[in-house]
């Protein structure tokens, strides 16, 4: 045993946090305005991407951030992907480029978990924007394992 454990798959237990949570009542409305959402499945020129503010979120983000719909999805178009496990990521790059050049998106926000393997999603987006003829502002947001926003900055 080397003692090294991948931060992306290390077992962690947050059940203790249950005690701190204030019980809330009532239902929240979903802010999802499209289908599909997985990056392999979406068409980058779908109507909801035209001139939109797009969130490209790592698969785990929406599970970690408690108010993801209200705070980060509302008013935006989305696609999700996992830079660690997904195959065929060259297609992802092409789709991001198409968002910029064909759908003429307004901004791109990349939301990732804090684990190192997640940073690949930002790298993928940056490379696609670099290769694209049209540029847009990219924002990078890193989410902790317990759903806090650790950093939020323009790239």
């Amino acid at each position, binding site marked *: 045993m080397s003692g090294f454990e991948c931060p992306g798959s290390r077992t962690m237990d947050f059940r203790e946090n249950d005690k701190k949570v204030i019980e809330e009542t009532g239902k929240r409305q979903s802010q999802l305005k499209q289908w599909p959402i997985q990056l392999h499945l979406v068409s980058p020129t779908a109507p909801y991407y035209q001139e939109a*503010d797009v969130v490209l979120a790592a698969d785990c983000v929406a599970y970690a951030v408690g108010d993801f719909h209200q705070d980060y999805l509302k*008013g935006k178009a989305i696609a999700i992907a996992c830079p660690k496990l997904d195959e065929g990521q060259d297609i992802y790059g092409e789709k991001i480029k198409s968002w910029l050049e064909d759908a003429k*998106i*307004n*901004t791109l*926000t990349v939301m990732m978990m804090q684990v190192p393997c997640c940073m690949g999603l930002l790298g993928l987006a940056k490379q696609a924007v670099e290769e694209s003829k049209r*540029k*847009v*502002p990219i*924002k990078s947001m890193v989410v902790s394992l317990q759903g806090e926003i650790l950093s939020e*900055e*323009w790239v």
Partner: protein
Amino acid sequence: MKEYLNKGVKKIITEFPEVAEILNEYSIGCVPCSVGSCLLKDIVAIHNLPEDVKQELMYRIEKAIYPDRDVKIPVLERKEEPLSPEKINYSPPIKKLVEEHMLIKRWIELIPKLVENLDIESDKQLFLDGVDFIRSYADKFHHAKEEDILFEYVDENLDITKTMLEDHKAARNHVKAIIEGLGRQDEEVVFEHLNAYKELLTEHMKKEDEILYPWIDRSLSIRQVGELFTKFNQADKKVGEMAPEKYEKFIAKLEQITFKQKEVKR
């Protein structure tokens, strides 16, 4: 204290000069401001000071205004140093404006050398090229983006916006005087207004880089950031996308000339 929070800073400084020193200590550069009508409460809010620093500042100002009042000393717990301008994470459109300032700053740094080493008769063309840089790059390419696009996203009645617009007007008046001076070959007038332009723009860009732009950035939605980015690109295309390259070359040439002259003088 509420009465003073809603008062223009210049009036407060005139009444209580100690406040000027306090503001300077916190790098709040309102003292030399030409307008000075910003309200004290807006100034404190706009500088985005950490909560502990804000409390300390307000305590000291209140004490300066009411020395006999029993003002509660805030419990201070210094957390982190405020960000230096180099470390500010501007949004891409605002960053574009900050980068445009860099070329204008290089020009401004050259002004004392021009004044010292050149004369307006034999080097008239260089001065005219300098005026063209101010008019075409600093004003048409840069200030126009602020006036026609950026300030649309800010309350035009705010004193800080008015101050920035006043600075632009004052800069244009200096340029007008420089051109008239060049026409009359009046070296004194040309140098006087070049120096005044340098002073004005140095302070103006500092206020924008460190206070105004970060403040605007904090108030922009992600939608607005994307819109600004597109509008700035369209504005650049209208003026000519080669303008930055053309004027970058001009400044580099001027730097070389003034450097050589400095060497010859030695």
